[in-house]
């Protein structure tokens, strides 16, 4: 079977592209690191790829706001992104990539690509790296979650990860359209504050998908849990867990085949 081509987007300050590409490679994808300027110049075309991944990092230093500059470039350069999404091809934005998707108006989904959400600084006021418990929305049609357990663990590492919405109405819309893909929870699945919710996001939202389920944006890093010994407690037998991050990439690759 032919390996689907995966576009891993780069710009100055992207820094999780190599491990993200390795994750796709491990599950049979054919990732290619593509600089945003190569898309702008027309040297590379988004529509030639089966999956788009916007990896984590500090694109352009997060100057002006996390992901803001790259989001503008995506808006103006990747004009075929909406068509890409409409065709049902998988798009994943991780951490900085999620911030880009939100600020480019791709997530939460709106017909006019309006930006209805944004990110601000963590309530703790600090950049923080830690593993969190997450609950997947079992009612969401998110293709990345196929076959995953409801409760998973992944690491977060960000300073500007608090999701905010334009108005309470938008939260209701998100609930109705089953777009809240995953939430920060305690070990036994309850919604709680810091440090379980590491940044203070509204309704403990850790990730969003579009109603069709082919676009996923999330603050946690699935590419940092693609081997058993990525989990912080893998040296304790009772805590040995399958690498759930890898399954998200596998689902995207399988879908794109």
């Amino acid at each position, binding site marked *: 079977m032919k390996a689907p081509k995966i576009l891993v987007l*780069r710009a*100055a*300050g*992207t*820094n*999780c592209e*190599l*491990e993200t590409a*390795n*994750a796709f*490679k*491990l599950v049979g994808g054919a990732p290619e690191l593509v*600089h945003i*300027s*190569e898309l702008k110049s027309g040297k590379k075309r988004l529509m030639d790829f089966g999956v788009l991944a916007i990896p*984590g*990092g*500090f694109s*352009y*230093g*997060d100057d002006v706001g996390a992901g803001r500059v790259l989001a503008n470039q995506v808006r103006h350069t990747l004009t075929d992104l909406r068509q890409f999404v409409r065709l049902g091809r998988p798009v994943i934005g991780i951490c900085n990539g999620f911030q880009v998707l939100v600020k480019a108006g791709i997530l939460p989904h709106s017909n006019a690509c309006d930006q209805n959400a944004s990110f601000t600084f963590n309530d703790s006021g*600090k*950049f*923080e*790296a*830690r*593993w969190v418990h997450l609950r997947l929305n079992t009612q969401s049609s998110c293709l990345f979650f196929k076959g995953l357990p409801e409760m998973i663990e992944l*690491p977060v*590492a960000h*300073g500007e990860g608090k999701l905010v919405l334009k108005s309470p109405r938008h939260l209701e819309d998100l609930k109705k359209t089953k777009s809240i893909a995953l939430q920060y929870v305690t070990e036994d699945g309850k919604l709680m504050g810091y440090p379980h919710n590491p940044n203070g996001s509204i309704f403990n939202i850790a990730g969003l998908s579009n109603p069709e389920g082919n676009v996923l944006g999330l603050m946690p*890093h699935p*590419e*940092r849990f*693609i*081997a*058993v*010994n*990525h989990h*912080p*407690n*893998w*040296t*304790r*037998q009772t805590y040995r867990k399958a690498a759930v991050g890898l399954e998200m990439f596998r689902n995207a690759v399988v879908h794109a085949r």
Partner: protein
Amino acid sequence: MSAPTADAAEFAILGKDAKALRALGAERHLSLSDLEWSAIQAHFKSLRREPTLAEVETLAQTWSEHCKHKTFTSPIRFTEGRKTRLIKNLFAETIVAATESVKKSWCLSLFEDNAGVVAFGKKWALAFKAETHNHPSALEPYGGSETGVGGVVRDVLGCGLGAKPVLNTDTFCVGRPDYAGALPEGAHHPARTLRGVIAGVRDYGNRMGIPTAGGGLWFDDDYRLNPLVFCGTVGVLPQWAVKKEVKPGDLIVAVGGRTGRDGLHGATFSSADLGADAPSSAVQIGHAIQEKRVLDALLAARDRRLYRSVTDCGAGGFSSAVGELGAKCGARVRLEDAPLKVADLDSWEIWLSESQERMVLAVPPKNLKALQAVFAAEHCELAVIGEFTRTGRLLVTHHERTVVDLDMKFLHKGLPRAQRDAVWQAPGSSKPSGGATLKLADALKKMVGHLNVCSREWVIRQYDHEVQGGTVIKPLQGVRHDGPGDACVIWPHAATGDMKDPMGFSVAHGMNPEYGRLDPYWMALACADEALRNLTCVGADPGRAALLDNFCWASPEDPRQLGALVRAAEGCRDAAKGYGAPFISGKDSLFNQSKDEKGKDLPIPGTLLVSAIAPVPDTTKAVTMDFKGPGNALYLIGRTNDELGGSLYHKVLGRAGGEVPKVTSPATALDGFKSLHAAINRGLVQSAHDLSEGGLALAAAEMGFTGEFGCLLDLDELPRDPRIYTHDVLLFSESPSRILVEVRPEDESAFLRHFGKGAKSAPVRRVGSTMANPILKVVGLDGSVLLEEPLKELKEAWQKTLPGMLE
């Protein structure tokens, strides 16, 4: 064409006497000695001309302590007790000689490049370097530590033909954050310094996408005016890219950031006393994303083999980068071609500026076009500023005016060597004296909360320690991901692209300035020992370890300070030989002393940071330090002696004196480490933790509260000096080379088979067991229960100190 600049004109020194030259030097922050001035005078006298300002600046930077390590390489008259001997070159006779004597075929580059390089499997190599950025961090903590990270990352980028950085480490020595005494004008409070340096490392390292997963913190009020900031970086490069060369005719290409007025006189300033009049322009301004662009473009160009050599612009800027690359052939530079931040820079400023994120390449002219395309794709600026020649001269012009025309030989070999005196007086009686008496339980509670051992979680969480997806043993460990790991293990698949090979590496540190106060020789051995046992505990191969030395000392002009430094260097020599662990790179930072609020000199305690790196043959077999289950056996490797000198126990009691911990036989210590490594590789070890500050009691407490299982220890089972009858010594002594190991009952006999039984083998004994009840229970020599402490309380005391002071 701009107006001719003033600094291309003559800078008159020929007729001047020593006093006048000294004044001239002070005015321009040149830090040149009388002897160096007279060598410069004599050189230009023989040329029958005055130098230019840029020439004198170039010489001052190139000859600075920072660049030439004069103290370590100049003759020293060393008096030890009644004996006096001449050390011709301390560096060559200690560090280098020891490294040569242990001869390791896996050392690929030693001391000559920007970092040391060791083999990592058959195809790859690891470059490792640690540097300090002390003076800038004292002046401006955030900018100082940021550019400290940026600088050492560039060292690794500029090592061989370029290595990809895969790990950063950071160690800070600062005054206590709750220091309440007076400070001289202009000095920052230690809490402000600490917050600033943490933020700097965080913002630069995180933005660069390099995990910061190792390091340490040490608090002592004698660092309050001279904080120490050690930044280390490990890079991965293919073995073919280790060697570099420059050929005459190659273009001198500057890449990365533009040149500005920031960071003038950084190299010479690092040898000057800090005071209220210190030049703020000496601190550079960091821009992490610019450096990330350089990194991405450079490695892409490396893999297409578009350049022949590379080095970074560090101290001395272009002058040292071009001067070093062209040392063997010659170089010609046109300053007007260098991209500038501001237009009104003088020639000497362009030439000497330490603006960040710049690198210099030697590029065959036929490759220029391809190189330009690679850098343009990453939006990274590139400029040809001259070419390497075969003239043996360093010729620099600015708009056709000659600003520097120096003989490379004089520049690099002309430095006159001044002899210095050093004195070492062995400490006399070491009977412990003074201080309070505390119940064992009370002492333990005070110790776990002490600044020098308490939880560092507040700091570590601010660093992205998992970016690149290779941190398989994390700095924070245990059930709740918050226990104090001995070292991190990195599986650098993002750099190698190989997800099948489970090989990784580990980096660990050893440092204890308290021991140095008693005897720097034993401090050095203890530091190396600590770094190696930390490595061993996580599963790295102690027989394949390489070391870095970073000395931070007060003024070498004080014979006692210099004597202590000699003693520490000799300790490093004997450590390298004894453990068979070569030093592959190192750095020294001297003159770390300042006038305190009363105008008295406040020197830092002589500080040595030993960093160690070793491969972890199979990262899926790595080990953490948290207890894994109840009913497991606890084994102690290594012998306990009455060594409480400089210990944490004495510190909390306020007691002075005592025997400094001694590694009397590194060979025996290494034997124990190697046996443990073999057992770990066979999967026979559940957890392992080294005994350092606080001794056995603290190590057991940490393993317990991190794994959430208790333990019972019987002090009578300790392998020990039979003359010890006091419980506090057995619990808290800091004898080196000891590791506490958890083994399942079914693995005990197999585990013990890995340990030798000869007179020179490391002792190993079962000293207790783990249990479900989460308490630390200790039975004394007479069978009585000495301690029965709930781990929860110990953990709370351990966790609350730092956030309490910094939030």
